[in-house]
């Protein structure tokens, strides 16, 4: 449904987006991750046709967003960053305006509005002016505007920004539900949202895609992915690490901590170790040595670690740039 090819956007000499390409099919929810200023919003603005790309191409449902913007825009529902809305209108007036621009009239318009109002729980504030709404309600009003025509493509820039935990949960489950039939792209910097709602995630840094995969695939890029964490009781820490390091199935073992007489250590699998071999050998070791085994866990990898490793914070970037 969405096809982005080699998208570039230059603001003066600065490249905000530099050669981004990806596709999103119907039934996919794509999470767009990246540090602030990485180019997430700029990319979304180019997909929705708000700003023209410096070079590259975006097609939505087969329509080029620059050459054939109107049919492409008809397919898209868009929730911009900060959820803008006309403050002098009532919620109903605002949704009615959005429905009219989407070509809905009469009964269809009424049905579309009541569907969106139900979906976003706006019944209570329907006749209230947007200006007086709390941030959560205003956000949902703008969200309702984006889904009023039941679009096939939904683009959302930080849809859960500024919401309370319950509202975040609602929006995420809504995104997941709608994602079964639509092509959805949303940006966030909350990593747990990737697990909660996405079928695929892209990490973007300094205008370029640095990772693209399912949440599981991304997690496997984590350093600790596949490592086994062991928690035992009543053994000196030195003994544990020594024994661990003598195993052929590991390449590296480290001590994580020793809270309340327990020892927590982590073993990283050797390059030639088969799947599950490390766990098995650790279990056998614990039995052989009569360690009191509390926990034996294979790490899935952590998104936040992957994120930190492949995107660089501004401070590091600056010091790196200044070094010769």
């Amino acid at each position, binding site marked *: 449904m969405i096809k982005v090819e080699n998208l570039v956007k230059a603001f003066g000499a600065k490249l905000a987006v530099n050669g981004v390409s990806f596709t999103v099919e119907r039934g996919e929810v794509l999470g767009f991750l990246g540090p602030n200023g990485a180019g997430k919003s700029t990319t979304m603005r180019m997909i929705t*046709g708000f700003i023209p790309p410096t070079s590259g191409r975006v097609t939505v449902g087969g329509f080029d967003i620059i050459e054939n913007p109107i049919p492409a825009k*008809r397919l898209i529902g868009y929730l911009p960053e900060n959820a803008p809305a006309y403050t002098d209108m009532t919620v109903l007036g605002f949704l009615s305006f959005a429905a009219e*621009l989407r070509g809905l009239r009469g009964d269809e318009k009424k049905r579309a509005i009541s569907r969106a109002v139900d*979906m976003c729980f706006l019944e209570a504030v329907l006749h209230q002016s947007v200006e007086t709404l709390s941030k959560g309600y205003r956000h949902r009003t703008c969200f309702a505007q984006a889904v009023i025509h039941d679009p096939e493509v939904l683009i959302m820039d930080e849809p859960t920004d500024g919401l309370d935990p319950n509202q975040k949960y609602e929006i995420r489950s809504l995104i997941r539900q709608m994602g079964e039939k639509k092509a959805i792209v949303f940006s966030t910097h909350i990593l747990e949202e990737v697990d909660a709602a996405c079928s695929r995630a892209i990490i973007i840094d300094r205008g370029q895609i640095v990772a693209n995969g399912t949440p599981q695939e991304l997690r496997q890029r984590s350093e600790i992915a596949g490592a086994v964490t062991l928690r035992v009781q009543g053994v000196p820490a030195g003994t544990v690490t020594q024994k661990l390091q003598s195993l052929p199935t590991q390449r590296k073992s480290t001590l994580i901590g020793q809270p309340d007489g327990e020892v927590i250590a982590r073993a990283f699998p050797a390059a030639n170790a088969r799947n599950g071999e490390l766990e098995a050998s650790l279990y056998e070791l614990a039995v052989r040595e009569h360690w009191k085994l509390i926990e034996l866990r294979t790490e899935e990898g952590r998104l936040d670690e992957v994120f930190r490793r492949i995107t660089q914070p501004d401070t590091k970037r600056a010091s790196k740039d200044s070094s010769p």
Partner: protein
Amino acid sequence: MSAQASPVPLSAVATHPGAFGNIVAIGKRELGGYFASPVAYIFIVIFLLLAGFFTFNVGGFFERGEATLESFFLWHPWLYLFLVPAVGMRLWSEERRLGTIELLLTMPVTPWQAIVGKFVASWLFLAIGLVLTFPLVLTVGYLGHPDLGAIFCGYLGSFLMAGAYLAVSCMTSALTRNQVVSFILSVVVCLFLILAGWPPVTNMLVQWARPWLVDFVAAFSVMPHFDSFRRGVVDSRDLVFFLSLITFSLFTTGVIIRSHRAG
């Protein structure tokens, strides 16, 4: 939140309203926006009060002893100088300040539909103010036998001049997200449009400038064009002048908006 399954996607049943439908939807919202805030009522009251004050107290309506609205229309270029930019200053700067421009321009509407829709709505609003001066027409009708054709011409000219000022305000409001800046810029441009052809200014120019230069500068002025309407003459050149001023300003608005988006 619950996602209700609808059997047919709404995007499929939606009829595509075309340019006119979009312009109407955008215009309706804009006009509603004026009346949703006190702006509309304040504007109309001030406009009527000032129009009355200039007509009767300054223009000497009764002292003239003529059944005409000359003294009424005489002051319109000056009255509009401040009032029209006050109406037009929010057109685009408000959209940019609120960020709603991003919503509007990602809807399936073209930028010119948005520009025309917003412009026409504000112009209609000014027309409402103008129509509410009808008691003056009744007054001269009661006092004497006015030339209704001339009065109609005066109103037409006044309406066109308001449109020209408004298009200029529309253009300056696209330049900035600050309404005050937009207002001031617009007043300055409109003041130029008045002064360029005002006799005291042209008489001063005549002293040293060549006649063609005086004519060239004066050609930008709304004054001579409005004057002929005020005298009850509808000249196609005057019509063309106002309409091309409006077209040019709206076209420039489009260029400005596009250049913002291009970054």
